[in-house]
């Protein structure tokens, strides 16, 4: 049923339709609306049989999820930013144990400095944990990906992270088609565990594995990610068959056919980019967009094929890897094995700074003319940053950098002391 609905509510309804048996969550902005809605659904009895645990930390949330999943339950949790980091040990543990947990990451920047707004630094920090990472472009895709996630996770025994941009998708009210229970039941069968704690057939799960077998156990993790490359598109296809729309899959090309410049991006920013691309196409620039939905596994082959006709690539990076270059850029470069295309990382939208059509337009025109720096920070207030650097060169005890810069731009607490 078509509804005008807040992204978080749409996701909560989708989760409910997937018949989760255990939901455990610790609140963190901007995921709160999702777990609040689910806790109400469980408490009123509209979602049952389901146990909802209010846990004492994100570490506990993922730990409860591990226990519940190992006992054979379909499990869901959600977090963001600092919470994802706090549960990091358990995130890796869940993947290593092969437990098909589904988790929403409401993408939010990681501090310090503390920041509650959207960027991808949180999910990027866990990209090596062995989880499947899927990025939603719209609220519709966010809700759809959760439904697909349970199927992918349970089929492969690999946990799946569904990434949706914090605030931008979680707190925006837009149109979404909420499936009905029958459709979801048709698409998503009950969970049949590959391994389960069962007194009737006892097993020990969580052995210590030494050098003699560790590599092989880890190889299985890689093998599963490669299987996911096959499974994700086929699940998306099945999804289209039952729900009647395109959602998920590995990549989303837009006006790529004769594109010279290709913009690669993850998540909701694709929408703004497409508007700019249409405008620039109207002015004769051959630009296209390659949206990446499956970031892990990274679809190297599919990306290589999609970029076959391109002259250059611009990678929109919603996270910073200090001391390195672009994260998405690295994977793109790894995909382009035979021909090294100029690939320009553009760090954009850190900590919730709006990625505007105007800035994208200027940047893309420069990119199309190969006039971009090797690493671009979109909309950087260079003088503000330079002022702080100059301060640190001039004296030793310059104080906290963030506070200095906030004072410079005249924000709250400016002028204290």
């Amino acid at each position, binding site marked *: 049923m078509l509804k005008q609905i807040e992204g978080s509510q749409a996701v909560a309804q989708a989760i409910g339709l997937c018949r989760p048996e255990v939901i455990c969550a610790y609140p963190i902005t901007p995921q709160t609306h999702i777990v609040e809605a689910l806790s109400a659904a469980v408490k009123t009895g509209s979602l049952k049989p389901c146990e909802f*645990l209010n*846990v004492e930390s994100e570490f506990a949330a993922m*730990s409860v999820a591990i226990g*519940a999943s190992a006992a054979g339950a379909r499990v869901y949790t959600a977090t963001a930013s600092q919470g994802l980091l706090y549960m990091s040990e358990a995130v890796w543990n869940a993947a290593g144990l092969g437990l098909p947990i589904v988790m929403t990451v409401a993408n939010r920047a990681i501090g310090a400095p503390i920041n509650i707004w959207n960027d991808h630094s949180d999910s990027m920090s866990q990209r090596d944990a062995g989880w499947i990472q899927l990025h939603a472009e719209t609220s519709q895709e966010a809700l759809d990906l959760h439904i697909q996630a349970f199927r992918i996770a349970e089929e492969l025994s690999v946990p799946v992270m569904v990434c949706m941009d914090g605030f931008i998708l979680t707190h925006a009210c837009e149109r979404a088609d909420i499936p009905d229970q029958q459709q979801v039941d048709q698409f998503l069968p009950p969970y049949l565990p590959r391994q389960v704690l069962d007194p009737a057939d006892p097993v020990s799960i969580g052995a*210590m594995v030494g050098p003699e*077998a560790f590599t092989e156990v880890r190889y299985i993790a890689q093998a599963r990610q490669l299987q996911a490359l096959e499974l994700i598109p086929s699940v998306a296809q099945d999804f289209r068959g039952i729900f009647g729309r395109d959602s998920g899959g590995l990549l989303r090309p837009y006006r790529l056919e004769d594109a010279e410049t290709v913009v690669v991006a993850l998540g909701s920013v694709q929408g703004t980019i497409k508007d700019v691309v249409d405008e620039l196409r109207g002015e004769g620039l051959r630009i296209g967009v390659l949206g990446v939905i499956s970031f892990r596994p990274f679809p190297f082959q599919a990306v290589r094929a999609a970029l076959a006709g391109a002259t250059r690539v611009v990678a929109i990076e919603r996270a910073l890897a200090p001391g390195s270059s672009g994260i998405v850029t690295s994977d793109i470069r790894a995909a382009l094995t035979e021909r090294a295309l100029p690939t320009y990382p553009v760090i954009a939208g850190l900590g919730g700074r709006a990625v505007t059509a105007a800035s994208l337009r200027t940047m893309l025109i420069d990119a199309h003319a190969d006039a971009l720096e090797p690493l671009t920070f979109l909309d950087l207030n260079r003088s503000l940053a330079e002022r702080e650097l100059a301060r640190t060169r001039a004296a030793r005890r310059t104080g906290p950098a963030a506070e200095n810069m906030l004072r410079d731009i005249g924000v709250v607490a400016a002028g204290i002391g």
Partner: protein
Amino acid sequence: MPYQQIKFYQTGSYVVGNRLLEEGQRSVQSDAHRSNSLTCGHRACQGCGEALGARYALDTVMRATGGKMIAVNATGCLEVFSTPFPETSWQMPWLHSLFGNAPAVAAGVAAALRAKGRSDIRVVGQGGDGGTVDIGFGCLSGMFERDDDVLYICYDNEAYMNTGVQRSGATPPAARTATTQAVGPEPGNVFSQGKNVPLIAMAHEIPYVATATVADLRDLEYKARRAMDFRGARYLHVLVPCPLGWGSASGDTIKVARLAAQSGLFPVFEAENGELTSSTAIRRLVGVTEYLRIQKRYAHLFRPVEQTETIARIQAIADRNITRFGLIDDKTMTQDGSPAGSVPQAQAVR
């Protein structure tokens, strides 16, 4: 036919294997059909108190639940020595996740079972003092606070033994560990630190809290069985000497545990919903010196010079426990066989 002579060290009516006892009075270990939850072949050290305690506790729970039990284990000695890849000595479903999350993982297992309508299957979470008192403390408190239907058993050997005997929040004052060495002006672990997790568990007012030692295995069995009478969060804290870490003889494990209880340093008691319901009176009161002397982790208290002041401070801790938990009754004897005199029932333990 080859035979192995089995020596029974316990004497008296309640010796394991006494078939004259009523069924209900017999040790679980005397049952040929016991689950043997932690079966032989594990890699524990000679004289490991934890292996002994875990086997007794879990066999009891398996009997109480008719074999319908799932165990969640924190990282630590028990987990490491019981599951040397590719073997496992566990005879029931067992899950090891991380060091600090066993109580939360156990809560998750219990929630899953409940969602599936299988609350007949019971859940035990277990770990050493490190995983319970320190790194697992947040998760433990969360499990208590939510009253999750989990029995959590802490096997307390008073340090991080698996990683080489480092100090934990359960390490007693003056004890030598790898990070509280017997050097400097205050050798060994300092005074005024440490956590009393059984009391903290009581402060959460959970249905059942109890302490036990491997010196009185029948009592440990009783407490494990009693804990399974309840639903909700339950906590069992078991003192398990570690010959390697404590520097005691591997044949002295039970003796050391007995002396810990008989000196008053380790009070043995039960509580329900935050109220003390029983404490086990000391049978033969000993001074702490008898306990400390047979452990090398306290050697610096005796050589080169006896540290009378430090020993007196430790004695004061024991005396406080005796008063607080009412550990002396009219049957308590002193070392020379004379009555110790009774002390009013437990005071100040809320």
